[in-house]
């Protein structure tokens, strides 16, 4: 039987000094990236929170800020993949269907709804690659490390995902301008 060591007050205080800036620096982006992958911002936030909980529990093992950053992205995206894989079969969360929370009445006309719908046309892997590169601004090599696939495969997913997105979204307002 393995017993995990509790966070005593002293350690908790020490952790807070380092963890808080890290959290504030990355939480929103991780949550948004997860939200794009699962196409639901509420779920994205929950998955990001879970990733940061695990990071905090292992904070003493984090060798650097980059290590911690990679850890939270990896956990959040693993959770997102698991969410997508299992959500249709067992609605374990019991909170919402695959399409997420009820949308605002006017959301159908919203650019967000259009983007989420377009992302839904991509495979989970394509979506992850596009989000990490085109939103988070990671390199394909960084995505490859996080995803456990080759950078060549990342580029293939990226190319196909971008093509599908452009085909679905059409010219963006920026492009129109």
């Amino acid at each position: 039987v393995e017993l995990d060591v509790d966070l005593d007050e002293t350690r908790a205080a020490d952790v807070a000094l380092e963890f808080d800036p890290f959290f504030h620096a990355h939480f929103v982006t991780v949550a948004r990236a997860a939200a794009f992958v699962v196409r639901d911002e509420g779920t994205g936030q929950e998955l990001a929170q879970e990733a940061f909980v695990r990071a905090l529990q292992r904070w003493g093992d984090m060798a650097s800020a980059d290590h911690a950053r990679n850890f939270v992205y990896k956990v959040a995206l693993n959770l997102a993949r698991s969410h997508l894989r299992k959500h249709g079969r067992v609605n374990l969360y019991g909170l919402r269907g695959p399409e997420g929370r009820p949308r605002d009445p006017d959301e159908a006309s919203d650019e967000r709804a259009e983007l989420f719908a377009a992302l839904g046309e991509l495979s989970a892997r394509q979506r992850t690659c596009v989000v990490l590169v085109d939103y988070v601004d990671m390199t394909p090599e960084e995505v490859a490390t996080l995803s456990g696939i080759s950078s060549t495969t990342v580029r293939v997913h990226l190319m196909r995902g971008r093509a599908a997105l452009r085909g679905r979204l059409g010219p963006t307002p920026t492009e129109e301008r």
Partner: protein
Amino acid sequence: MNGDPQLKARFDRTADRMAFDTPAALEQVRRTAVRRDRGRRIQALALAAAIVAVALVVVWRLGPSDRGFAPMGAGPGGTIAFLGEDGLSRLDLTTHEVSPLSSAAGSVTSAAWSPDGTRLAIAFEGPDRVARVVVTERDGTDPITVFEAPDGDLPGPDLIGVAWSPDGSRLALAARAVAHGRTIVIVDIAGDAEPTVLDGHWESVSWSPDGSRLVASGFPQLEGGTFDLYAMAPDGSAVTQLTDDDAVEHQPSWSPDGSAIVFTSGEPLDQDVVVIDADGTDRRNLTDRAGVDLAPVWSPDGRWIAFATDRDASAEVREANRSGETRFRTAIHVMRPDGSDERRVTEVGVMLPVAWTAS
């Protein structure tokens, strides 16, 4: 910039509309991390308790003349399933034979026999780190997967409790659900109904003998709370709080006649065995000593309660238990449901009972 500028702009515009309460999220992350550490410690203690129950049976087999324990007289019969050094095993209390009882590849985290004793539900974490529940024949053969839980990379087991409905048609699972702490999942064994999830943060569960209520330890609100006992209908409705104090209360077990609930209460490393009436009244401490008493289990006839305790362990073993650096070692005691007639029935060792069946 690595990304496509136009897609990046589109992502950014949508992302800017996603509003997150970052301070609240940070506070929630902190609370969850601390609570999870505490929960995992309790969970480990419960596991240790089950292991101790096995030791109890082993000592019965050896007899008091061999070990110097008080005689049990006409002790409870049946079979105890336990998690020991070699995984899930069973002890026949009549023949005192111990044999393997696991067809599950991986780490077994809990098990329970069906009320009629003909089937066994086993929760385990497989080599792929996915937690599953299988239902097998009584002897652990012919497993059929009835549930898979997310997710593969969680530290520790995802499924930490299994309870059968009295009619044997459903299982109540105390499960960790991604992003929602732990909760209870009701699984229809025949697969005729989708699993249902009960709101709240629950870590252990027991089903009333008449099937009308569940008792669980945890708290109904996801944002946090203290570990108390709550009763609820199997659909999660009609939640009523049975205990209300600052202590951590865990491992509830409904008595076979439905009149009482036994559980543990206290700080994680100073738990006592407590019993209440099924409506939460008439709280009685059955043990009240420094140290860990945990994982109380009713005998099938309701005449005994077995539990694990470290009070008999040496100072070195107790210190090692508290350090978390070794497997938790306790001895099993038994007592009457009023706390009388307590006796030690095993030596100190690593063993954890998880189920007790009359047959």
